[in-house]
Structures are given as structure tokens and as C-alpha cells.
């Protein structure tokens, strides 16, 4: 993915959120890059409409900017706090939709699936763009192992090595507290 900024390593979510509370733009952008896919994915899952999900995602990050100074690390992980903020923005969008009579509220979402997707999509943001592309191709493109190696111009052994490396980088992130 050329042109994409490098994965935001270094600062923890809690540190970034505290800096957002102090109105630091860089911290907000870092947090956004880490969480935009999990938030959009959660919104899409609950709302079932891309346009609504897009607006709910924007509202969620606006709420993060507004409310970050209220976050206290001792109360829990930043990821869980963001999950709650995102859930509130999505619920508000659902309420508006219900009021407008423009659709039926969906069945209660499967929270376990949502939680797993949230954690995994958040963890993927920790990978460098090339690693993330490799994992996305390996798991969700439908390419066979041989086709994947051919597409990437690598030997099958090199693909195995890189997949191992990417999975190892995801492991500690996924071991952290879930929302």
C-alpha cells in the first residue's frame, strides 16, 4: 500500500488517548489509524448500511476528540473505552434511524463475534503495510499457497517465514485485554 503512513508503533493506546485529551493532533491521528477499521467494522455489523456506518464512525471519532480528557487509564484499557464510545455513537445512529422510521432495528448483535473482529482488526493495524497485505492475502483472498507465493514473487518457504513473523507480531497484541 504505497503512500500509507507506517504503522504507529511505540505509544500505547492509553498514552495516545491521554495525549488526545491534551489536544495533540498527532496522537489523535495515530489513534484514528489504529481504530478506524475496528470502529467502521463494528458500525457496519450493527447498522448494516455503509453510509450510516461511515457517519457513525465519524461521530465516534468526534466523540473521542471531545471526551478523551475524561478517560482515566486506571478505569480500564483504552481499547475498551473506545469500544464503548463507538458503541454509543452507533446506538445513537440506530435511535435516529428508528425515530425516522427508515428501517427496522437489527437483532442484537453477536457480541462475541464483534469482540473478536474488533481485537483482530485493531491488531492488524500494528503490522507494517507489507505484513498486513500478506496476512490479508493469505487469509481472505482465496489464493492458494502456490498462487500467493507467485503473486508476491516469493518462494513458498519465504511466504511461510513471513506469515510466521506476522502472526508472531500479532500474538502479543491479541493477548491484551479484550473490550
Amino acid at each position, binding site marked *: 500500500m504505497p503512500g500509507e503512513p507506517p504503522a504507529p508503533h511505540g505509544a500505547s493506546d492509553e498514552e495516545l488517548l491521554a495525549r488526545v485529551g491534551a489536544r495533540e493532533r498527532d496522537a489523535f491521528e495515530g489513534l484514528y489509524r489504529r481504530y478506524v*477499521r475496528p470502529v467502521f467494522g463494528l458500525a457496519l455489523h450493527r447498522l448494516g448500511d455503509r453510509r450510516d456506518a461511515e457517519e457513525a464512525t465519524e*461521530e465516534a*471519532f468526534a466523540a473521542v476528540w471531545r471526551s478523551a480528557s475524561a478517560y482515566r487509564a486506571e478505569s480500564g484499557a483504552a481499547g475498551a473505552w473506545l469500544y464503548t464510545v463507538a458503541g454509543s455513537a452507533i446506538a445513537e445512529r440506530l435511535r435516529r434511524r428508528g425515530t425516522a422510521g427508515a428501517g427496522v432495528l437489527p437483532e442484537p448483535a453477536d457480541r462475541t463475534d464483534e469482540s473478536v473482529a474488533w481485537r483482530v482488526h485493531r491488531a492488524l493495524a500494528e503490522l507494517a503495510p507489507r505484513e498486513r497485505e500478506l496476512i490479508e492475502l493469505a487469509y481472505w483472498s482465496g489464493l492458494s499457497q502456490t498462487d500467493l507465493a507467485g503473486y508476491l514473487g516469493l518462494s513458498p518457504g519465504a511466504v511461510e517465514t513471513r506469515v*510466521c513473523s506476522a502472526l*508472531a507480531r500479532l*500474538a502479543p497484541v491479541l493477548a491484551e485485554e479484550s473490550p
Partner: protein
Amino acid sequence: MSRGPVFDELVGDGATGAERERLRRVHELLLAAGPPPELPPQLASTPDFAAVRRRQRRTLKRRAFLLVGAALAVAIAFAAGFAIANHRGGETPAARTVTLRGTSAAPQARATLELLPARRGNRPARLSVVGLPPLPPQAFYNVYLVRPGKPMASCGTFTVSSSSQAFTVTLNVPYAPAGGDSWVVTRTTGSGQAGTAVLRAA
């Protein structure tokens, strides 16, 4: 039907023992999560920080805007409706009136849609609008009948030359309105891209 990725094939002999089990757990979580969603272009780029600040200010002032805007819209819609009704000698009173409010794409916008009695198989409607932003050339607003929960058919299009100007357009609802119907106004660009909702039934 293609099978999903197989852990042993993906990692080969690249890890053993506890490390292999740790990677297998990650593999299982990846399979359970499914692919991350493709981001729409508006979300894919770094957020427009100025927009976030504007949204923050807007939220703080939203209630005041809503009160003033709603009062203004009601007054304008009433005046427009009254004038039109007088002009037509009151011959077409609305069978049903729907209030529309601006979405986040056009928070200042307000509108009233009056569904008029059917005439010779047609179902005319009057839309009184205020607060919609002017459009670039070749862009237009489209009024959709929403059923069930999704835009079903266009009732007509219009453009705006001045956001401060209240005006009324005549439309035609292509299907007989039903109880659960709603309406949405979208902004459509000349490129033919899907429109953005600017007004929804309140």
C-alpha cells in the same frame, strides 16, 4: 467451493512447541474475525482535523441551531404553504405532511413534504426546502421514496442556487404511499456516484 487457509500449510515448519500453538491461536482468531472492512474513501484518509473541530463546535451549538432552524423552517414552510394555497385558491390541501431534517451532511437544512391527493393516477407532492447548500454544476438533489428502509424510487430532482432562499418544488410520488414509507433527499454529483443523504424524515 475453496477451503480456507490451513495453518500447517501457511506456517510450514516455521515454529514448534508452545510458539507454534501461540501462532495457531492467532490463526484461529484471524479466521473467526474475517476480513477487515474496506474503508470508504472519506474514512481512509487521515481525518480532517478542522472538520472534527467544526463538528465539536457544531455539537455544542446544535441545540440552538435546531431550535432557531426549526422555528425558521416552520415559519417559512407555513408562509410558503399559505402563499401557495392562497395562490391556488386552496384547491390542493395536503393529504399528509412529512417533516424532513438535515443530516450531518447538511445540518442546517429543513424541509416539509406535502403529499397531495392523487389526480388521474399521479400522486403529486410539494417539497418546501430551506438551508440546503448550493451545488456545483451538474450536481443535483434527488428526492427518494424510502421503502422498506431503502431508497426505492425517485420522486424528482432539483437544484439550489442559494442556501438562504426558501423555495418549493413540485414532485410526483411514483407509488401509492403506504404506512411505513419515508422519504430521503440525497445530493448526487454529476459523476453518477451514489448520493449522500442530506435530509431524512424526522
